[in-house]
């Protein structure tokens, strides 16, 4: 029987290896703050830094090992310095109807009428926790807990680009058409991702979002 811990640092270590090129750092609520700090260091052995849900993956360039500077950054106490406020984006949404096929069902689940659901969803400011799934797909944190909803039992084969959706405790926006398992509550004309733009992704980790009903 193989030892599943072979090659991993000691149980108390700050990170765990994902092959020999990925360092998975548990960052919890400090993910965006640590991401800002680690990105700002410009360490030459790092090829990429990917924030996610409570963790950060640092990818080492091929053949590189963990330098003293990187080791120090990995074990540094979680920065309690507040993250500098990211850009605030106002995103206009057409809620419900054919643009948001699941809105009526979600409102019922939340025991409110559709108008109250929309008010509730557009009343708060969201923060981009991370991007993933598709290029430019934002995982937005800040969803009121009354609006949490488990993913759909069976994903849709095709979700339209610009669809605003709910998955668990996150709100997301589909940048491109394709399959999707989140509940659709509306749609925006905002172009979330365009590889030809100087800034391909509209939203970056740490940015803030407010939804405005069309």
């Amino acid at each position, binding site marked *: 029987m193989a*030892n599943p811990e072979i090659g*991993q640092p000691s149980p108390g270590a700050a990170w765990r290896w*994902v*092959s*020999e090129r990925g360092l998975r750092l548990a960052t919890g609520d400090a993910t965006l703050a640590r991401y800002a700090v680690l990105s700002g260091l410009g360490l030459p052995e790092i090829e990429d830094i*990917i924030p996610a849900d409570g963790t950060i993956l640092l990818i080492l360039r091929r*053949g590189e090992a963990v330098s003293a500077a990187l080791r120090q950054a990995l074990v540094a106490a979680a920065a309690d310095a507040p993250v500098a406020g990211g850009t605030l984006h106002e995103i206009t949404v057409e809620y419900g109807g054919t643009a948001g096929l699941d809105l009526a069902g979600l409102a019922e689940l939340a025991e409110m009428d559709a108008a109250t659901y929309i008010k509730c969803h557009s009343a708060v400011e969201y923060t981009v926790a*991370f*991007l993933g799934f598709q290029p430019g797909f934002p995982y937005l944190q800040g969803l009121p807990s009354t609006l949490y909803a488990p993913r759909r039992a069976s994903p849709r084969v095709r979700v339209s680009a610009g669809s605003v959706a709910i998955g668990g405790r996150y709100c997301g926006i589909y940048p*491109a058409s394709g399959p999707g398992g989140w509940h659709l509550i509306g749609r925006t004309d905002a172009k979330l991702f365009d590889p030809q733009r100087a800034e391909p992704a509209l939203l970056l980790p740490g940015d803030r979002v407010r939804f405005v009903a069309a």
Partner: protein
Amino acid sequence: MIEVLRAGLCDLVMDQGRFGYGALGVPVGGAADPAALAAANRLVGNGTDAAGLEISLAGPVLRFPAGGVVALSGARFAASRSSSATVAWNQTWVLAAGETLALERAEAGSRCWLAVGGGLAVPPVMGSRSTFLPAGFGGFQGRALQAGDVLATGEGRREVRLLRAHPPVSLAGASLRVVAGPQAGQFDDAGLAAFFSGSYRVEAASDRRGLRLRGAAVSHRRPELPSQGVLPGAVQVPPDGQPIILGWDGPVTGGYPVIAGVIAADWPRLAQLQPGDAVQFVTIEVEAAQELAAASWSIEELG
């Protein structure tokens, strides 16, 4: 210039990859064996970051109206030239004006790379000429080549040097070397035993996003996980217990536990796996894997 007379199964313009956009949800992508493409580029006098063609399982028929300096690396394919001259791998050769190169089936392995003097001149997107099929951008119009396409090439070197390339020594046998974890603890003993001592087959539904495996189910203690960053070679296990080795165009985040990660030195072997191939996993320490990753191609002057 290159004319595509017949397209292969999936001919993709690739370079070394698109770096630094993981946080936007865009993986590095690029050639499945970047060192092999870089070697082919050196053979034709290009910089290692020039774009070439990645050819999978069944290749295209290409016509070179003005001729060209070319080189192939990677898996051997049945191949012919209209001049009847032999098609060699891992060395420089010169096509006469109007010559045709026909690549048929892969004889062993799955992918080869074609470099041409001057490189393929497609516009870079987000700093790379690599095709990213899942989102349809980069490379030649964001897609695989089709019959009738015409590829522009850059200005090649005037003098041609005939060179030969030698790949790094590759490990024979089916075992892929992995670093265990980071979520090995989310599997039960039977699941771990199945994974580390079992044998898997590569499924036909595999592509550059991931290699789907079939074999003894890897049973979980907990099948769910908050989305975490992942990289090529990470072995995710979804609730059905059948492992997926993430590929070059895989997602940058994933929500399934990662039982192990294939080391970078074995990524070129992932590039050569075909549907039906057998795969086993053997663990290796991180430090040993980092030393192995430095192995590289060597280039020598021919005669």
